[in-house]
């Protein structure tokens, strides 16, 4: 009935419709995300800078071919808490590593003298280059599917980082009783309902857990060469890129936790003092 209410809402709603008589939707299924752990978890967790650097490289060389990160600027990479932060360059726009990372990328601009569209190397102040100019272009290049923006992706999915990691490492050949349309790939961690993807004659079989995703398995062993010599297995690539994505989802997370620790210690002491004052003040009042 809830889904019914959604359908109603989306349709703009008619008067007096019964909530109970809705069409039955088949249930969407998915595997529980894998049990993975990162250094950034918990109130004291911090990002492993080198891991986030490797993760950026995975994003840059693999993910960014299809996925935008519209909320990210190259300067973010060199800001306090960022993977390329250097205390010598408090202003990330001056950080030479960030400058050269940006410089490798060509962005479109307008020539201020002629008004022509030109290409120029990016600067730290530029937004991460988006792979497609607009949504129809993105869909046209991806068999109709829209690769989601990755800026806050680890927050935008139930299960968070563990879900993204499981999805990236979970691709499987489809079970034999199932036939997927071209351009669709089976991943047990992707939520979906595969009832309609059963081969003819197999309709009575219970469909496998998971869904069909429009993204082909993006990672492969050795696909990215890590600068620090870390062996690039699929698991490592996924593990690192998720750390990068989690950092990008909230670049101020470390600052938040650190500030919070100070604030909480202050509040605990303050509460203690107030309690002592309260006890002293009320000592002679019968209540």
């Amino acid at each position, binding site marked *: *009935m*809830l*889904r019914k*209410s*959604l*359908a*109603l*809402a*989306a349709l*703009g*709603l008619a*008067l*007096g*419709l*019964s*909530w*109970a008589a809705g069409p039955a939707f088949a249930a*969407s299924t998915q595997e529980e995300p894998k049990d993975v752990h990162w250094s950034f978890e918990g*109130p004291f967790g911090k990002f492993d800078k080198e891991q986030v650097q490797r993760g950026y490289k995975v994003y840059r060389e693999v993910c960014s071919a299809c996925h935008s990160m*519209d*909320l990210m600027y190259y300067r*973010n990479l060199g800001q306090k808490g960022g993977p390329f932060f250097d205390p010598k360059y408090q202003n990330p726009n001056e950080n030479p590593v960030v400058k050269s990372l940006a410089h490798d990328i060509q962005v479109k601009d307008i020539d201020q003298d002629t008004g022509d569209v030109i290409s120029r190397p990016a600067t730290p102040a530029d937004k991460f280059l988006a792979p497609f100019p607009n949504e129809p272009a993105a869909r046209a290049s991806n068999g109709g599917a829209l690769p*989601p923006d990755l*800026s*806050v992706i680890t*927050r*935008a*999915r*139930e299960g*968070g980082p563990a879900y993204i990691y499981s999805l990236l490492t979970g691709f499987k050949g489809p079970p034999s009783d199932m036939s997927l349309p071209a351009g669709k790939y089976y991943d047990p961690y992707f939520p979906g309902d595969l009832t309609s993807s059963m081969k003819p004659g197999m309709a009575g079989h219970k469909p496998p857990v998971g869904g069909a995703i429009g993204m082909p398995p993006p990672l492969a062993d050795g696909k990215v060469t890590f600068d620090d010599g870390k062996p690039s297995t699929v698991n490592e690539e996924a593990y690192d890129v998720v750390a990068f994505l989690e950092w990008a989802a*909230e*670049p*101020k997370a470390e*600052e*938040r*936790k650190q*500030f*919070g*620790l100070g*604030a*909480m210690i202050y*509040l*605990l002491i*303050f*509460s203690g003092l*107030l*309690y002592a*004052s*309260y006890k002293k*003040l*009320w000592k002679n*009042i*019968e*209540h």
Partner: protein
Amino acid sequence: MSGHSTYEPKSGLETWLDSRLPILRFANDTIVTFPTPKNLNYWWTFGAILALMLGIQIVTGIVLAMHYIPHVDMAFNSVQRIKRDVNYGWLIQGMHANGASMFFLAVYVHMFRNLYYGSYKAPREVLWLLGCVIYLLMIGTAFFGYVLPWGQMSFHGAVVITNLIGALPVVGHAITTWLWGGFAVDDPTLNRFFSLHYLLPFMIAGVVGLHIWALHVPGNNNPVGIDVRSPQDSVPFHPYYTVKDGFAISVFLILYGVFVFWLPDALGDAANYIKANPLVTPQHIVPEWYLLPFYAILRALPNKLMGVIAMFGAIATIFVLPWLDTSKVRSMRYRPTIRLYFFIFVLDCIVLGFCGAHSPDDLVIPGVVGPQFLDANLNSFVWLSRIAALYYFAYFWVITPLMGLTETPLPVPETISSPVLSHPAAMPAGAAASPEKRG
């Protein structure tokens, strides 16, 4: 209790001001010398906590409004920009978003305390009504505020709730179109919701002023529920309750801080990190936790208009509570029978909250396929919400009036000071009374 003012101007300037605008006298009489029952427990500290939360929400909200852009194409990104590029924006936004939850948590404790100790009864009916108005305004403000980040849940929540008005016969559609400023939830809707979200908190602040005024005429109720009879029964508000409330506020801030600093997204929905897209409907549209019980009542009924009436009826019911209660005894400490029904009622509200969070056709006990009853499985959340909604209304409309007429209350002490010496509930003096009851 407000009675005679004890303020004495201490300087020439204060004397001069006192004969022109006695604002210092007013402040002194309200927050310094105001006689307050000496037996208030920690449940009474939530009034001060709520005042603080309103202040925090207004201050953080004003700063957020300086950076927020109420436009369908930019609202989502502008909230993210606040968290990324505004100095301490993550803190201000986190305090505001989690502050709403904390505000409601405190208001629910405040309201349940009120029910338990009968604070709504004569002569405090107007105080209670003003509180209900504040609560209603809070619901409106929270709803408008939740739409502003323009995530998927913001948008589709706004669609579902505004469409409820469309259930009204004849005029429903016209009113919805008028509310939307168009034929769907869109840019004009977002703009007016932003405007109203900025307006309502100041209306709340105004009603809070009246609420405190109405409190200071009869004075505080207290855990034994009998009036202050002698000066020994009360203490001046300052320093006794400023320090006690201050301690409670500080502890409450620790809880608030856990969410702001360490679990900033725990109370939110992942779908709201996706920019609103009218063409993609999230699988489960649910309101924030504090409105789930009403959402459950809405969906408990098979007909939309009936659901809407029940939901608004649930809120309207609390307004008339002072006239439904037939008992003259305020505190449930001396009403053992209804006390049991009260605790069931608290539990019932929590159950309604769970029902609101689940799909109505989800099974309550997984794996057990119960019998079909009327239109739904008996083991589904829809039946649980029906039973829970029935108890919700029965508590106010049947149990409360009947109980006052039929129960036998325990003997009520003569004065506030007397039960202090021998604590009620047959507790031997000096025994370890539950600390939260002693304050």
